[in-house]
């Protein structure tokens, strides 16, 4: 199965069988930024995997047996072990699979990546809030809040004097925060990085990364999805297929 362009499974669908040996499965949704974290790491580490997309507006009953919270992403391996919470799935993949380590081996450098991740923690809920807002004044308030959060990341880049948040090459922290920056243009939030030049440069550098560019979704498709998603349409998750 290819990397995530299959129709989503919804209520009434048959539960999938066990995961074949040599593969790991990710339950995902094509437009979910949290699931994108996991797909970025799977790709970056060249891990053989299969993707099952879940219709998040019409969830299959069997999916709650995989994750009681009913959220994506969820990893399932051939031993039947299940891992959820996006950041935990990413760290699990880095530890369990060989090849390039995305998290530093040095304990302090690893802790630094986690501290930077904490700095980013308010962004996802702010972006969700913005997406759901219609009112112009409320929206500009959220934009201001976003700028403040981006300033924190700008400071990290300024102090480190490196292109990426973990150093001179791309690493885990960059993949963990990228999905939200990928969506800025579609949400008309690009202006929020106008005053953070290092972050803007970081975005440009990320776009050149082969893993990132292979998973990029265009602005039009995102907007089509957001439109349907806000209307709670069960077709949203399969937009564009």
């Amino acid at each position: 199965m290819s990397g995530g362009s299959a129709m989503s499974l919804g209520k009434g669908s048959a539960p999938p069988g066990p995961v074949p040996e040599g593969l790991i499965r990710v339950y995902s949704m094509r437009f979910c930024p949290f699931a994108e974290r996991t797909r970025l790491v799977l790709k970056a580490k060249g891990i053989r995997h299969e993707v099952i997309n879940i219709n998040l507006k019409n969830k299959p009953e069997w999916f709650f047996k995989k994750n009681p919270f009913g959220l994506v992403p969820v990893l399932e391996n051939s031993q039947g072990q299940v891992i959820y919470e996006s950041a935990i799935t990413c760290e699990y993949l880095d530890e369990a699979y060989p090849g390039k380590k995305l998290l530093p081996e040095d304990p302090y450098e690893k802790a630094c990546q986690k501290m930077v991740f904490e700095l980013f923690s308010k962004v996802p809920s702010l972006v969700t809030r913005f997406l759901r807002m219609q009112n112009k004044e409320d929206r500009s308030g959220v934009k201001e809040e976003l700028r403040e959060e981006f300033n924190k990341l700008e400071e990290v880049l300024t102090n480190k004097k490196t292109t990426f948040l973990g150093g001179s090459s791309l690493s885990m922290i960059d993949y963990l925060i990228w999905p939200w920056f990928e969506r800025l243009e579609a949400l008309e939030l690009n202006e929020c990085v106008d005053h953070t030049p290092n972050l803007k440069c970081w975005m440009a550098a990320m776009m050149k990364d082969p893993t990132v560019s292979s998973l990029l979704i265009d602005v039009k498709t995102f907007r089509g999805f957001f439109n349907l998603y806000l209307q709670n349409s069960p077709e949203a998750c399969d937009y564009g297929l």
Partner: protein
Amino acid sequence: MTDDATRTLGKGSPAPGPVSEGLIRLYSMRFCPYAHRTRLVLRAKGISHEVININLRNKPEWYFTKHPFGQIPVLENSKCQLIYESVIACEYLDDAYPGRKLYPYDPYERARQKMLLELFYKILGYQNTIFFGGDCISMIDYLFWPWFERLDVYGIADCVNHTPALRLWIAAMKQDPTVCALLIDKNIFLGFLNLYFQNNPDAFDYGLSC
């Protein structure tokens, strides 16, 4: 007497010097549950450390150079590296120091422990209402309360700054007539604990006048 039984440093206190080699320093506060996590890990792994307690209501100006918002816990080593956020600090200690590993070796088992921690935070953050079950007190609040009442006796007031929803919940619970009617007097409870840990059978009747 524990290793952290020293007076707090507050505004106007001189900044401490660099951390000596072979030691790691913890900025802490004796009653803070988050800092408590780090003290547990330091002890469990037998790591040589020193503790500086911070007055959280009257923070020293120099402390903001250790943490941008003056929070605890913060670790500082002899290389002047600073690590904060209690969970990050605990993992750093497990990674950086030899001896008994507290996190499992197996990646799946490690992931399981982290998922369990998320569950804990979800409990704390599961509220989008004052009470865990909604806008009125209900079974789940009564089921949780006894543990929080006991923690409250130890005075965690300053530390639920991290979890304002929990602070509100504790305050709201104390206004419930049922909770109120059964509130254990702090001094009596402490008296009980004192005798209990001495295995004194009179512990159970502590505070009774008859």
